[in-house]
């Protein structure tokens, strides 16, 4: 094998090269407003190319929920120059993988390809940024696919149903109340014109940015971007209304009945997210609190509720400090056999109360921070994850260049600050509690061995 020798040459070149520029991530904005962000990662001869649009389900209007995600599907259904299915076919032929995802805050498209295929990917993405066909028959067919996706991911998933309904109750004014995939009845009545209006409103270069991570020179990427995305005209964007959530005035409770075995408890507290990277303190303290409660197998919820008290089969926490809309801090779990949902609720409340009264220990704080830094280094192993991190920060209005500051801010969090957020935000007035009430399956299901073999 020639590899050992092949590896020597770049290393020698490297020794003679001048020190790298201060930032290894580069950025340029085209005259039409499209921003291009490039991170050079030359470990392997591949690139990931992503196009992010600042439009997600939170930008939808009543009666048209799910349109952001349906449009994402339709983006694979052709333009005049590349017909239905052609996008996937050409990515596959290029040796690539591609897909897309819609969130509350954004819609994004990506391809992972060998590095020399980047130009073709840009040509394809630029084409569908402006020239989508949105054929009526293709639309009708794809809507059926999306309804199958809703059945698969939500309607037949008790946990997802609970989450969907809890969210719809926790938020009343803010569009975060709506499921990303849309309500089934809205999907049933969605028209091609709705998708067209969505596309025309939001799919403009001045509402998008491109993220490229991989083995490619940033100047070359900028040149390709100018060639392919440069000719697309900027357009005025619709006004975004804030739709702020009014204050919650007391605990909200709901129950979801669905076929399942284990009950599930989900508690969601209204908490802040990062709005000012430098001045904010609380969102960082909440991140550390989440890590202390459930950041590893020995964390508090697992140790106290699952292992010592045997109150829960599982107990978890979820909090995302970055979002365009309002934040929720989730505590959730399933009670052990013989224990009740209310006992588990009391147990979860007791864990918050313990932080409120006695703060967190120096060891716990150091541990949470050690995991955080290690996690950032592990992220460097994946070009896809690096591109995701850049894209997600930008989507919520935090420049990717602030990532270093975000991590410093997390490192600066003190035990007192963690205690302060536990005291400040976890009161009943800000709480929504959802319970999955498991319903037995018909007896035929419980004895599949008895089913006939034909």
């Amino acid at each position, binding site marked *: 094998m020639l590899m050992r020798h092949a590896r020597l040459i770049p290393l020698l070149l490297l020794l003679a090269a001048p020190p790298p520029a201060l930032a290894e991530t580069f950025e340029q904005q085209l005259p039409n407003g499209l921003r291009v962000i490039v991170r050079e*990662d030359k470990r392997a*001869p591949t690139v990931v190319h992503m196009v992010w649009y600042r439009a997600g389900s939170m930008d939808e209007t009543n009666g048209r929920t799910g349109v952001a995600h349906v449009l994402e599907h339709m983006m694979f259904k052709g333009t005049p120059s590349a017909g239905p299915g052609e996008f996937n076919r050409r990515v596959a032929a290029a*040796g690539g993988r591609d897909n897309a995802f819609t969130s509350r805050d954004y819609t994004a498209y990506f391809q992972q390809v060998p590095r020399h295929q980047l130009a073709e990917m840009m040509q394809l993405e630029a084409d569908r940024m402006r020239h989508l066909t949105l054929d009526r028959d293709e639309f009708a067919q794809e809507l059926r696919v999306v309804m199958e996706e809703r059945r*698969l991911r939500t309607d037949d998933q008790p946990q997802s149903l609970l989450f969907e309904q809890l969210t719809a109750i926790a938020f009343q004014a803010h569009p975060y109340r709506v499921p990303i995939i849309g309500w089934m009845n809205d999907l049933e009545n969605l028209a091609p014109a709705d998708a067209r209006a969505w596309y025309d409103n939001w799919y403009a270069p001045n509402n998008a940015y491109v993220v490229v991570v991989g083995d490619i020179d940033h100047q070359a990427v900028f040149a390709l971007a100018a060639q392919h995305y440069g000719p697309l005209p900027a357009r005025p964007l619709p006004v975004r209304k804030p739709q702020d959530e009014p204050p919650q005035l007391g605990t909200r409770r709901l129950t979801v009945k669905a076929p399942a075995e284990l009950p599930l408890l989900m508690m969601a507290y209204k908490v802040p997210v990062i709005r000012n990277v430098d001045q904010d303190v609380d969102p960082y303290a909440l991140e550390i609190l989440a890590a202390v409660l459930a950041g590893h197998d020995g964390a508090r919820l697992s140790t106290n509720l699952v292992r010592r008290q045997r109150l829960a089969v599982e107990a978890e926490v979820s909090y995302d400090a970055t979002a365009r809309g309002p934040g929720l801090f989730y505590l959730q779990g399933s009670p052990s056999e013989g224990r009740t949902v209310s006992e588990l609720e009391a147990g979860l409340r007791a864990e918050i109360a313990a932080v409120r009264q006695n703060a967190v220990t120096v060891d716990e704080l150091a541990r949470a921070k050690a*995991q955080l830094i290690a996690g950032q280094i*592990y992220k460097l192993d994946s070009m896809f994850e690096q591109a995701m991190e850049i894209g997600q920060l930008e989507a919520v209005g935090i420049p990717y260049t602030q990532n270093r500051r975000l991590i410093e801010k997390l490192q600066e969090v003190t035990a007192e600050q963690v205690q302060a957020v536990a005291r400040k935000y976890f009161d009943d007035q800000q709480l929504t509690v959802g319970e999955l009430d498991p319903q037995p399956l018909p007896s035929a*299901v419980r004895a599949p061995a008895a089913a006939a073999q034909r």
Partner: protein
Amino acid sequence: MNPCQLLFLLLLALGMQTTHAAPQIERWQTTAGARVLFVETHALPIVDIQVDFAAGTAYEGAGQAGVASLTRELVELGVAGMDEAQLADRMADVGAELAGGVDRDRASIALRTLSMADKRAVALDLLRAVLSTPQFPAAVFEREKARSVASLKEALTRPETLAERALWTAMYPSHPYGRQATAESVAALERPQVLAFHAANYTAPRATLTIVGDLSRAQAEAAAEKLTAALPATPGMTAIAVPELPRSGEQRIAHPALQAHLLLGLPALKRGDPDFFPLLVGNYSLGGGGFVSRLMKAVRDQRGLAYSVHSYFQPLAQLGPFEIGLQTKKEQAQEALKLTREVLAGFLAQGPSEEELLAAKQNLMGSFPLRLDSNRGILNSVAVIGFYELPLDYLDRYPDNIEKVTLADIKAAFARRVRPQHLVTVIVAGE
């Protein structure tokens, strides 16, 4: 240097690394008799070590279904001198992560750690303790057993779980691959059975270590020696029986879900079998190639019947399955099943077209670098090579092996491996 500074220096360094095709794999055996595969890469200060034991569910004794998973869970829940919480805390203190699981053939314990000497030394000591001195405390055993029973009961309400289990039972009616843990079988397990399963299967001759990352060969050798020194040298049960092929049949299971889950499958392929490449290339066109496969086009794009439809081969130590799966609104289950069978029959009769073959090769060869563009990707590929004793130049020859597949190879391989008289069908919630 504080950790933040380190992180951002690393980001700077990423732009300066070398480029290569397939990783260079080194292989040796430890004194205790464990196999080691090592890929040295210093691009990032990360070390991954995956230890795979031939301790999957196929090695469970009759009446002990569930013992393999329970054993794997318990090895990291208490070691000599450290209870489960202390172990987890020390691991987290150095930012290290322990992962893994159990499949039919393998029980895996995977460590990811930073490579700085102080962090790495702690993480390796903890992994060595997990490998050599697990204590299986009685109280922890009882608790984890109860948790397993609870999650199993929950899983058995899910249509996808019911379908997958019924399919494996039907594909392997009298073979260990078809054996499934039930709430009853797990509840009946006793601690001595776990101890016996561990003693018999977590041994040096049954272990393969895959090490990828920021270590020298000498450091990797020292680590592998240390990790395996205390493992017993007993070889244990080696061969899994050859499964008999089932008679084709159809099983329906009632369920209140809105969607029917349809699965078709049969035992088809062993690791290392030369039919692997023609089947891989052919299956790309049938149902493996994501959005461009025949099944996806027919079932999703043309008829809107499903969100996802796929087919794949899962080669194992013995004949692993070929499987087709999809989910659709229950009212259209029959239509989707009929269409799926037509697509399969058409493919078996004619094989792929010239254009499909070309497209399959373009993608499978072109995308090969994507599988190896991270330490994690290299680890996954090399661990399979190690555990199943594939040739060390497997990755180097992979593109050539794809390239030389012909239409005739594909038709012949499918004719040998996917015979309709052995294909079993499971439909959950299809009424």
